[in-house]
């Protein structure tokens, strides 16, 4: 039995997202909390930038939930870099217990499942689930140097630059999200141990990066509070609760093309969805929102084909967050991917629709392709994994 139902409600207190400029131009551009002008964000390397994205996403989510950093019992997160470097480096700024997780692009699903189980079992009260990915750092770790003049394959996906964080809690959320101001995010962390000289340097870099935050799209800036999706002034009508989920198996159908990860992940997603539907006795139409992770346009077609062979037709509102992330004009071929992909969409677009009561019960299936740079060279095939969790919205 891989499907579970939680006995106690596990509330989603808040979600916070930071994305890069290209993502801000994409289909979900209006829903994100921060859109950056420059995806280096005044740092010296893309890895440092990714770590900062994640740190500030966690800080923003905690603030938005109306909590203090000390209120968080456990932080859980992961990313795509070697040995979870950006998550671990982000976690050193918080005085909380930390669990690092890795399931490639489905890390967010893993974090949500483990986090809600911990809260349900009474082992923790507040948990943050965060993941991040960065196009440039992923590109150089998994593929080629950025400036190399090669062509991307038509089946390739674009690693999303972005980080998001969800705060899970055993307490019901407030009707109004706390406002997050620029200073709450871009600030010197108490946990950082810096000497005088470095502190000065750090403060200067903060001054510089405050100018970088995109004024047009940031809802941290007062003028933007009236944007349709980012309305902080209006009290929320609904709150979101994690109700259960299905833990995925590693499925390998022998695809060895690292430029075609959607096809590696689609069988795993199909398996998880099938298992979830049989074990929970639900029908796809019982959900008014089904979201898979980052299968991409071709992977989405594969998943629909695989499920149709089993006699299951996904409803028309089924959405793949990777395939829908970018507009076709942005030339990402199959769409977005990466640990930040499903996370940033869930914490912005999906969560806001849940909180406005537009979605009642949804199934989120983050998917991941399990490989590193060496396994395809050693002629290994690429297995996939997918986790599913269900979220319901309830009225206040």
């Amino acid at each position, binding site marked *: 039995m891989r499907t579970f139902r939680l006995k106690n409600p596990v509330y989603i207190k808040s979600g916070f997202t930071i994305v890069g400029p290209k993502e801000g131009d994409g289909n979900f551009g209006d829903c994100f909390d921060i859109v950056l002008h420059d*995806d280096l964000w005044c740092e010296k390397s893309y890895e440092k930038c990714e770590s900062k994205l994640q740190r500030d996403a966690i800080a923003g989510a905690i603030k938005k939930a109306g909590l203090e950093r000390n209120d968080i019992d456990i932080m859980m997160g992961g990313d795509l870099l070697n040995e979870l470097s950006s998550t671990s480096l982000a976690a050193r700024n918080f005085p909380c217990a930390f669990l690092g997780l890795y399931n490639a692009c489905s890390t967010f699903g893993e974090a949500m499942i483990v986090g809600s189980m911990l809260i349900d079992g009474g082992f923790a009260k507040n948990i943050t689930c965060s993941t991040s990915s960065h196009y*440039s750092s992923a590109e150089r770790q998994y593929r*080629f140097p*950025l*400036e190399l003049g090669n062509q991307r394959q038509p089946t390739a996906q674009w690693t999303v630059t972005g980080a998001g964080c969800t705060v899970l809690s055993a307490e019901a959320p407030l009707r109004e999200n706390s406002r997050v101001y620029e200073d709450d995010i871009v600030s010197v962390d108490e946990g950082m141990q810096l000497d005088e000289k470095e502190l000065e340097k750090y403060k200067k870099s903060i001054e510089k990066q405050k100018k970088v935050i995109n004024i047009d799209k940031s809802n941290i800036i007062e003028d933007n509070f009236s944007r349709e999706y980012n309305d902080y002034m209006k009290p929320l009508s609904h709150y979101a609760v994690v109700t259960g989920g299905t833990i995925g198996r590693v499925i390998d159908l022998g695809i060895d093309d690292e430029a075609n990860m959607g096809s590696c992940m689609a069988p795993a997603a199909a398996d998880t969805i099938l298992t979830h539907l049989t074990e929970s006795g639900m029908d796809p139409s019982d959900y008014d929102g089904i979201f898979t992770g980052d299968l991409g346009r071709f992977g989405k077609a594969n998943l629909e084909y695989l499920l149709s062979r089993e006699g299951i037709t996904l409803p028309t509102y089924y959405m793949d967050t990777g395939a829908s992330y970018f507009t076709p004009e942005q030339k990402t071929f199959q769409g977005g991917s990466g640990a930040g992909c499903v996370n940033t969409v869930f914490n912005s677009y999906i969560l806001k629709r849940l909180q406005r009561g537009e979605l009642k019960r949804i199934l989120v299936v983050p998917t991941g392709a399990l490989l590193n740079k060496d396994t395809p060279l050693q002629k290994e095939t690429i297995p996939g994994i997918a986790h599913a969790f269900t979220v319901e919205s309830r009225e206040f």
Partner: protein
Amino acid sequence: MEIFLTYLKVFAVGGFVCMLGQILINKTKISSARILVLYLLIGALLEVCGAFEPLKKFAGSGVTIPIMGFGSNLAKGAMEGAAKSGMLGAISGGLSAVAAGLTVAIVCGFVFGLIARSRSKKF
């Protein structure tokens, strides 16, 4: 008029060579390093067969600017070295024939590596 014809030949042959590579890329999803190695070996092979010299006469830079020219220089240098100064020439001839290009590449790599940073792609 003659110069126009020369350039036309260079353009056509150079373009054709690159187009063959593109067909390989489209069909086999081969990576760029493998393509370069493949063309280098083809160049060396053509030089050994003696087919490179007439090609060079015909198309000039159309065959020497593609990496085949690099391969043919390596092969030619080694053969000339072997004929001129025996075994030692056979060993050192190849690299000394391409030493200029290699040195420029390495020095450029070092200098631009120091001063330039890679940027994120926008497309």
